[in-house]
């Protein structure tokens, strides 16, 4: 599904990504962890077609970026720590708007469906700025899955959420967000990140420092590996 080879991203003299190699087969849940500045968000933005690679090959679903970006966008859903929602519009209006942009068929029914799935149907007419952060994140997931993407990109989705909200988010994500989809998630939360993943990757200073399948690791080992690679 995703094929990344020698991905380099530089901002002038600063190199955010220094040659990342990654392969994510269809249906896999990949968690990417790493310290601040490792390049996690940069990489995710490139996968989301919001940023162009400086060098290297990035292929999603067989389409090469950046040329095939328009086609790729149909199949991607992004949840970032910014909600990407219009605060003055209602939940329903936000979803209807994005639905139109994605040419979602049967829009009304679909909007109702996702609102119910994320547990926000009762607030559909309220302006988004009146939502709590947790609710906004859930609505963001609704927005991201509206067009039934085959690839979900989650950039530190738990940021700013308390335990309760995070747990709710996780439930929503596992039922609505990630079923049957390929997922790439970046996070600071090592435990949660490992628990939901099929595979994990540690990104340090723009490179892949460590990768393993979940079956090969337990939480302690993962934390140890993280500590080792980020101290060096």
């Amino acid at each position: 599904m995703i094929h990344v080879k020698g991905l380099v991203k530089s901002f002038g003299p600063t190199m955010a990504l220094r040659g990342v190699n990654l392969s994510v087969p269809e249906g896999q849940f990949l968690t990417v962890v790493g310290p601040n500045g490792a390049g996690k968000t940069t990489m995710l933005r490139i996968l989301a077609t919001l940023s162009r690679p400086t060098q290297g090959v990035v292929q999603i679903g067989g389409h090469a970026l950046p040329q095939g970006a328009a086609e790729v966008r149909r199949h991607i859903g992004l949840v970032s720590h910014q909600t990407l929602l219009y605060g003055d519009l209602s939940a329903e209006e936000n979803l209807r708007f994005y639905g139109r942009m994605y040419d979602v068929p049967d829009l009304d029914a679909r909007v109702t469906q996702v609102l119910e799935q994320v547990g926000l149907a009762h607030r559909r007419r309220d302006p988004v700025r009146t939502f709590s952060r947790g609710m906004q994140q859930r609505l963001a997931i609704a927005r991201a899955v509206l067009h039934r993407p085959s690839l979900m990109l989650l950039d530190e989705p738990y940021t700013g959420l308390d335990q309760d909200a995070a747990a709710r988010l996780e439930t929503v994500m596992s039922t609505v967000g990630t079923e049957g989809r390929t997922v790439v998630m970046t996070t600071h939360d090592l435990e949660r990140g490992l628990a939901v993943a099929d595979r994990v990757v540690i990104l340090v200073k723009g490179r892949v420092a460590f990768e393993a399948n979940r079956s090969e690791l337990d939480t302690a080992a993962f934390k140890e590996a993280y500590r080792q690679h980020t101290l060096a």
Partner: protein
Amino acid sequence: MSYLRKVAAIIAKDIAAELRTREMLSSMGVFSILVIIVFNFALELTDRQIVLTATPGALWVTIIFAGMLGLNRSLAVELDKGCLDGLLLTPVDRSAIFFGKALGNALFMLIVEVVVLPLFVVFFDVPLIRPWVMVIVVLGTLGFAGVGTLLSSMAVNTRAREVMLPILLFPVAMPELVAAVKATAGAMAGLPVSEWQQWLTLLIVFDVILVAVSFMVFEYVVEE
């Protein structure tokens, strides 16, 4: 058809959001009134002849400054909460985003102008409610909103933010301003079109060229 529908959806979204808060329209409106009042005191408006000569310029200055308020606000809304990223994520053509925002901006400016023109008539007793004047105002607004949308989408992404827009926009919009003011003066005086026709032509040429160029380069502004 789908392309136009998406442009319309973007405009509708901006209108819906604005109707909720009415922030942009009210600030543009209040600002315009203030400018008109300042003009009243700044210019020697006792002499009828001076009033007639100064009005086209005063009118367009008001429109342009109010317009810039709207432009800044419109783009700032998209940056807030990363909504522009949300739009860029979708498969929507970048040019559709441009037209949607530009037409939306033009629409808001026109709404404010509907208030400003009568105010000028009331305060200064000038014959502005003529068909040709309205045509010129619409043309000027379209061109200004077009290139203004492009430039404000850059300005808003710089350190200086809103302050950058007038710096970028004024030199570029100059020919349009001159043409609009001159054409308005001609139309206001009730002169036959042939007398001020070159200004009208210039205005249209400006609109066409600058909107076309803006639309072509817009994607380079929004794509990282």
